[in-house]
């Protein structure tokens, strides 16, 4: 491989690029390969989307070709000598030479730029913005190795690198891997025994089908999706009060379990409310974007935080579905990707017309009631709707409108404004200062609504009273009030403006909803609202969604995506390790598989690539430390959720109760210490202690400590990719957390069941097999026996210690000693690792 090395100032190797001789041979210059990296590294920090020194930006061809501030043309296609850029990068005087104040470009870089200009200075779109096509199967060295089509692309790549695939993993190792990957739990020992004795070549596929059909499947994949959805059971920020949004979590679990195609999964979450006659399930799905934070801190500005929530919805949508850091274009043009400042606010306009407004009650909500209260609850909620409609029609009456105008003029008196909730005041005063004719529909509605809340008018006051009474009757029925998206009706819509420098108070040009031109035009016939946006995302012409989503699933199975920066497919993200494979998978997923996730996953786990052993060698580790070439199987530490769930499962404690409100398993005292909050952690006493981790109550400012230690995010914002770490605090959790001790004691009981404590080796071997699904070798067994005997001697001498460890009196020294061994087994690298 012909590599060119760029040296950074400090002499550290910063970037290695594959050049394949383009610069020295005089061949065709490839903009993406040869030129864009130079611009991104050396030029765009001053001539990009943020700063456009001398009025020059190198992100778009049309901008780079027009005369700069000096009147000179930076780039004249076909004529390097007439191009000011060439003059400046080759200028002998360091004062005039670009990059300013930095080392000059290398001779090769200059030659490449000159040749590129000579060849017409063509701007090619970044690879990720060009629709993927499935390449024909490449030739491979060993036609017998591939089991599925994707294996051909992997093997072709290994062939080019001169590497060979690893042998297949053993049956128990592969079965455990697939089970952890597909349902987040290890398989039962009995199932492994049966599977590994089965000589039928279809046995593994049948096992996979079982996993895909398991109700545990949806729970496992929901944990991935909930990071992206920034799902949490609290509102965030200072007081971080609880929020009732678990029905959305349940919707995700069930959508995965039912095999909902990903295109529908997308549309229902982003715009379920805009579908014709939406079902309650489709409305619940829209809570995806109600997982934004609500700021209840005193003295905040509700409009500012409503805007912050909309910004989060834009950023999250583009990160999750497009692998695009649109957030960078919020204050200015994107620094290095081809997105203009306006593009951001055109996307913003899609999300800017929902009825939510940073209110502590999270309205609008979808109430759902316990079955026996459902009829009564629905009737009461119908009353609320009727009252709202009556209030609106009353407010529209001329007399009330006149009174409202008169009230507006008095609003400038602090004592009058002071009657409003403090977080409303800024926005209400801003609207009141805007002449009525200049207000948009939403602003008019807002003042009517606020006036209706404060007026002494007897009819409106009566409606308020009845509404409040009705709400208190509703609340007595203990409903789940799920925040959902609700579009403002026509005539009450907000206008969307560009926010200059990202400041919501400084309005630039007004914009209409639209998608960034760089990713492709919005196909004709799609609605200019969230539904149209959702349909654009899953449209066959969208170049990114298929790739981005396939990459996310690949990342979950292999530990690292084909594009490592799964959150960034832009020009500064890491390039794909195997683009032909990525594109083939994306096309397969969106066409043949019809967006069916189970089909995608099945294709991958049946592949020879996936079935490889993860055993490595020092040479392979040196060559490819992250296993991006896939010459072996994946080997990674389990996620926070898997670590907890596996411990409970192996101990036989795991509850199989699904769905419902979030639960509070034991956690240390003092974790919840929030300003201005009286909420307490009420530790569960029934099987809710042992539910799967995804049902644990997720408080944003004080997440469950054992999970946080294993790199789970706090879910304040969308986290595209968890970074795995390996720290001593993790060891302390699995060694000492009472929850893990409880699981160890339970495993010890299962070990003893195998034939009584007299047969020590059998009990130890069974514990090892229950946890790791493999038979221990003699040396491992001997190490466990040594530990067992030391522990037994201790607990014989100190029976009280044994009682403490087991949590109950009279467990006996043998059982206590087995608990110590079980605790050790549950701390083995192999146990916390998917191998």
């Amino acid at each position, binding site marked *: 491989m012909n590599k060119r090395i760029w040296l950074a100032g400090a002499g550290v190797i910063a970037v290695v690029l594959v050049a394949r001789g383009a610069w020295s041979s005089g061949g065709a210059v490839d903009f993406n390969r040869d030129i864009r990296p130079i611009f991104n590294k050396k030029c765009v920090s001053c001539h990009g989307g943020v700063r456009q020194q001398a009025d020059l930006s190198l992100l778009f061809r049309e901008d780079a070709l027009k005369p700069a501030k000096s009147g000179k043309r930076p780039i004249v296609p076909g004529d390097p000598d007439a191009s000011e850029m060439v003059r400046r990068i080759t200028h002998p005087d360091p004062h005039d030479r670009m990059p300013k104040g930095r080392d000059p470009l290398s001779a090769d870089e200059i030659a490449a730029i000159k040749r590129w200009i000579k060849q017409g200075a063509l701007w090619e779109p970044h690879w990720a913005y060009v629709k993927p096509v499935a390449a024909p199967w490449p030739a491979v060295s060993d036609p017998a190795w591939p089991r599925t089509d994707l294996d051909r692309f992997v093997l072709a790549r290994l062939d080019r690198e001169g590497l060979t695939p690893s042998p297949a993993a053993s049956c128990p190792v592969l079965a455990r891997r697939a089970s952890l990957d597909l349902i987040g739990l290890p398989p039962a020992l009995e199932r492994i025994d049966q599977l590994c004795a089965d000589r039928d070549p279809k046995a593994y596929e049948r096992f996979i089908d079982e996993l895909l059909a398991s109700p545990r499947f949806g729970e496992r994949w929901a944990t991935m999706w909930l990071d992206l959805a920034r799902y949490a059971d609290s509102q965030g920020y200072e007081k971080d009060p609880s929020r009732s949004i678990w029905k959305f979590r349940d919707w995700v679990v069930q959508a995965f379990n039912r095999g909902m195609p990903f295109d529908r999964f997308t549309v229902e979450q982003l715009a379920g409310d805009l579908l014709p006659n939406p079902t309650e399930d489709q409305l619940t799905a829209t809570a995806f974007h109600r997982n934004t934070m609500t700021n209840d801190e005193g003295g905040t500005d509700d409009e500012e935080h409503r805007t912050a929530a909309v910004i989060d919805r834009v950023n999250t949508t583009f990160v999750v579905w497009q692998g695009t850091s649109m957030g960078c274009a919020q204050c200015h043009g994107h620094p290095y990707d081809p997105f203009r400042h306006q593009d951001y606010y055109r996307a913003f306009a899609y999300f800017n017309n929902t009825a939510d407004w940073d209110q502590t009650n999270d309205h609008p909500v979808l109430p759902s009631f316990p079955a026996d209260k459902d009829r009564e609850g629905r009737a009461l909620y119908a009353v609320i709707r009727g009252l709202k409609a009556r209030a609106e029609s009353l407010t529209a009456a001329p007399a009330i409108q006149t009174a409202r105008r008169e009230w507006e003029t008095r609003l400038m008196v602090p004592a009058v404004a002071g009657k409003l909730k403090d977080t409303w005041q800024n926005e209400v005063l801003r609207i009141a200062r805007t002449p009525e004719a200049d207000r948009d529909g939403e602003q008019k509605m807002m003042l009517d609504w606020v006036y209706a809340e404060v007026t002494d008018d007897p009819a409106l006051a009566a409606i308020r009273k009845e509404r409040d009474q009705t709400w208190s009757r509703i609340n007595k029925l203990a409903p789940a009030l799920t925040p959902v998206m609700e579009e403002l009706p026509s005539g009450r819509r907000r206008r969307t403006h560009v926010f200059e420098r990202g400041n919501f108070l400084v309005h630039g040009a007004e914009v209409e909803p639209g998608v960034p031109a760089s990713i492709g035009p919005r196909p004709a016939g799609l609605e200019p609202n969230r539904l149209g946006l959702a349909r654009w995302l899953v449209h066959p012409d969208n170049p990114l969604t298929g790739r981005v989503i396939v990459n996310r699933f690949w990342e979950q199975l292999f530990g690292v995506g084909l594009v490592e920066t799964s959150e960034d497919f832009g020009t500064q993200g890491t390039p794909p390790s195997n683009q032909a494979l990525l594109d083939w998978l994306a096309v397969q997923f969106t066409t043949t598989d019809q967006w069916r996730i189970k089909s995608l996953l099945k294709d991958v786990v049946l592949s020879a690539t996936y079935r490889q052993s993860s055993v490595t060698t020092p040479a392979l580790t040196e060559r490819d430390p992250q296993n991006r070439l896939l010459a072996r199987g994946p080997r990674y530490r389990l996620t926070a959720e898997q670590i907890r769930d596996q411990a409970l499962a192996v101990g036989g404690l795991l509850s199989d109760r699904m769905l419902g409100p979030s639960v509070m398993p034991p956690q*240390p005292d003092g974790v919840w210490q929030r300003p201005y909050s009286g909420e307490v952690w009420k530790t569960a006493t029934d099987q809710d202690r042992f539910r799967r981790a995804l049902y644990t109550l997720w408080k944003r400012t004080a997440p469950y400590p054992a999970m946080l230690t294993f790199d789970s995010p706090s879910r304040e914002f969308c986290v595209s990719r968890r970074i795995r770490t390996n720290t001593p605090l993790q060891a302390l959790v699995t060694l000492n957390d009472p929850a893990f001790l409880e699981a160890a004691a339970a495993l010890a009981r299962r070990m003893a069941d195998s034939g009584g404590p007299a047969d020590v080796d059998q009990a130890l071997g069974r514990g090892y097999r229950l946890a790791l699904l493999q038979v221990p070798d003699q040396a491992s067994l001997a190490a466990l026996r040594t530990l067992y005997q030391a522990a037994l001697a201790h607990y014989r001498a100190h029976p009280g*210690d044994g009682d403490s*460890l087991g949590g109950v009196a009279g467990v006996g020294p043998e059982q206590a000693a087995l608990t110590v061994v079980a605790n050790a087994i549950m701390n083995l690298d192999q146990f916390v690792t998917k191998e």
Partner: protein
Amino acid sequence: MPEEHDFEGQSLAHVTRRHFLEAGATGIGATALATLLGCDTPRGTPVPGIARNLLDPLSPLAPHFPPKAKRVIYLHMAGAPSQLELFDYKPVLARLNGQLCPESLMKGKRFAFIRGIPKMLGPQAPFNQYGESRAWVSDHLPHFSRIVDDVAFLKAMRTDQFNHAPAQLLVHTGSPRIGRPSIGAWVTYGLGSENQNLPAFVVLLSGGVGPDAGASVYGSGFLPSVYQGVQCRSSGDPVLFLSDPKGLPRDLRRKSLDAINALNQREHEAAQDPEILTRIAQYEMAFRMQLSVPEAMDIEKEPASVHEMYGTTPGTTSFANNCLLARRLAERGVRFVQLFHWGWDSHGASASEALNKGFFDRCKETDRAIAALVTDLKQRGLLDETLIVWGGEFGRTPMQENRSGADNPFIGRDHNAGAFTMWLAGGGIKPGVTHGETDEIGYEGISGQTDVNDLHATMLRLLGFNHERLVYRFQGRDFRLTDVSGKPIREIIA
């Protein structure tokens, strides 16, 4: 067909996956490591700016140039104390007390709570000048007034955030949004730790609640989580899950670790994944932390004179105890000690949040201990190499808060992003100086204005870093604590 691109030079997960292999470690794991860490062991990708090998993420590292400070103790007064009742003496404001605020001062401003036209509020404390530097200090801080010649004041700090959570994030991570590494994370990433048996970055909380923005203010952001602050507690387990389970004595724990390590060694022989060796090292470090953390956190054995000096009571959770712990941790080579003391949000909406009640209590809880910390470090010869930073997240208004347009029940001030006071002492700070000046009512700076980026640049400079070169590549871009601005404040550097 598109060809594959090269990716080897840009890998991210690789550099963040491998941590904590200690050259000098003891125990089974380390012995094996020393023999296994041959020259063909993969190393982390070089990170521009500093030569951090992420296989060994907390080993001590030399910064860009010789440092003046080796460690930091950061005292954050959460809620934002009023500069006008502590350090920024404004006699003119006293004369304006009770007058309506001129409208010109309100124009273009957004306040958290002030509505309409508030009244001006004079200083709620007598002030005097102290020391050779003749620094103004209010009567609320009798102990601090004796150490004024050791500190440098920044009187014209400013921020652009006026709600607590985002302002605290800005002060600690350089960004008002969640997701960036905190100062402590950057510093431990850049310098490692001098004590491998204690967490490198320790967080101590007092005042009953944590910081408004939660653990993100001492988080590691996009840096590997090994650099996040570890909260240590003065009651219960000093670090969560530190104690062995009841009924599992330490010698048995040792034997249990021996078994775990032996099996992990066999696993490494079979699977050859270097991550397994890292895990062995982590378990050994956890075992050592189980002794060293409680030892460091136990203030009971400190002599009575020390308790008298700090005002400490062993067995309780208090800011004073945390100051004494900060000294003990500094002595033991902990790189960054972050204290948060909550309760400075003196709006006047309630007694505990009033300049004429709760504020007195906060001063009493902190004054003696802070003076003791500075004096104690000085007596032990540690002040020269320990940087102490004191401050809140913004300042308070010269106007009296009139929440909802009416007078508040107690005396208080609203949030003011325009001006606040911070002070620094020790490690490379020029003692006895004041930099920056506010207008005659303490509303905004008029000279020597500094912001959070400048503070961070100064701290990093004292620790030996060029703040523009302490960078970490994330999402395709080099990030730094000071983002795109910041200048070391030379006026306060010795």
